[in-house]
């Protein structure tokens, strides 16, 4: 019983370290990508006039994943920044996926179910948004 509890403690600790690393690297990578795109963006358009007084909404290349990938191929600065944003948004979602793996290793059925519910709500939001 005692040894059983010990091993469980170790995996909980491992999960904390793993999740901490995922969050840290996700933020770091997204920051670096955003800086790279940002400098390139300022070099290209820095002398322009900002226009954010009216809302333009969808239609731009950086509002969809395919658009971002297409823009990256052309070396477009705004799409590089947006890739950084996508990595940032993906970081907490990847964190959930890692928690799912950790709960599976711990054989915690209740929390595997709870994690799956959260993950499906986010996926629903992601793909539901496409049709709106």
């Amino acid at each position, binding site marked *: 019983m005692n040894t059983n509890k010990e091993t469980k403690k170790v995996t909980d600790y491992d999960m904390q370290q793993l999740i901490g690393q995922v969050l840290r690297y996700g933020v770091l990578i997204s920051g670096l990508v955003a800086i790279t795109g940002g400098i390139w963006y300022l070099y290209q*358009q820095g002398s322009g006039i900002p226009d954010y007084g009216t809302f333009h909404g969808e239609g731009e290349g950086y509002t969809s994943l395919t658009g971002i990938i297409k823009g990256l191929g052309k070396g477009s600065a705004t799409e590089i920044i947006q890739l950084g944003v996508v990595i940032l948004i993906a970081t907490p979602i990847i964190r959930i996926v890692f928690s799912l793996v950790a709960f599976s290793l711990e054989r915690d059925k209740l929390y595997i179910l709870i994690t799956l519910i959260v993950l499906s709500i986010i996926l629903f939001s992601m793909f539901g*948004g496409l049709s709106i």
Partner: protein
Amino acid sequence: MTILTFTLILLLGAYLAGLAGSLTGLGGGVVIIPLLTLFFHVDIRYAIGAALVASIATSSGSASAYVKEGITNIRLGMFLEIATTAGAVMGAVLAIYTPVNIVAILFGVTLIFSAAMTLRKKHEGALAEGSKLSYVLKLNSSYPAKQGLVDYKLKNIGGGFSIMTLAGILSGLLGIGSGALKVLAMDSAMRVPFRVSTTTSNFMVGVTAAASAVVYLQRGYIDPGIAFPVIIGVLAGAFTGSKLLMRIDVKWLKIIFSFAITAIALNMIYNGFNHKF
């Protein structure tokens, strides 16, 4: 004003927002929205997109440290994320049907509430006996303190879950982390000890914001020209804040910041009623 000057001023503003947000525990998003709308006259929808990005950046950045120390209750966070993510999706849908001036007024009201919450005294002590559901859901845990591991148990799980749903809706509608409501749910309803409730709330903000950010990105709310100075500024500010937090007493800072936030909030509400958005 050229794009270069706009970017540099926004970078500085985002840095201060991240710094103030991490020192007071309010998060980066609450300052970003008034800064962009009242100062730069940016459309509130771009401001909401930027605030969401700022919330995810500060949450993930600081959560990485707290999670490693073992203060964050990952199971509690995961369970309550059902409520906050479902709420965030509802909020993002509601946003389509909500006029921008109503969004501005709601934002102002939430700001005043958050300011009041920062000054409120939190529960320090831990409950010795939890409710039945807290055992079933394995939410009772312990956290490291100076005197060693402190055990705590939770109650009123249903109440906390309901407030979390509301926190999620507001987060999805306004683009903020709504950390104040999250702490209210955990602190007042479920009696989670203060250190655990603030870090677990912060841990949840990233996932909650991501749930609505995937919708807002596709709707064009997140503009790269605004997003990049905001991400970099807020991250740098939050980092400085976390280093400073160990050394300075934030009591007075919290009071001053709360009054400043309230003044900004009244301005947002006034402009909202006059349809200036």
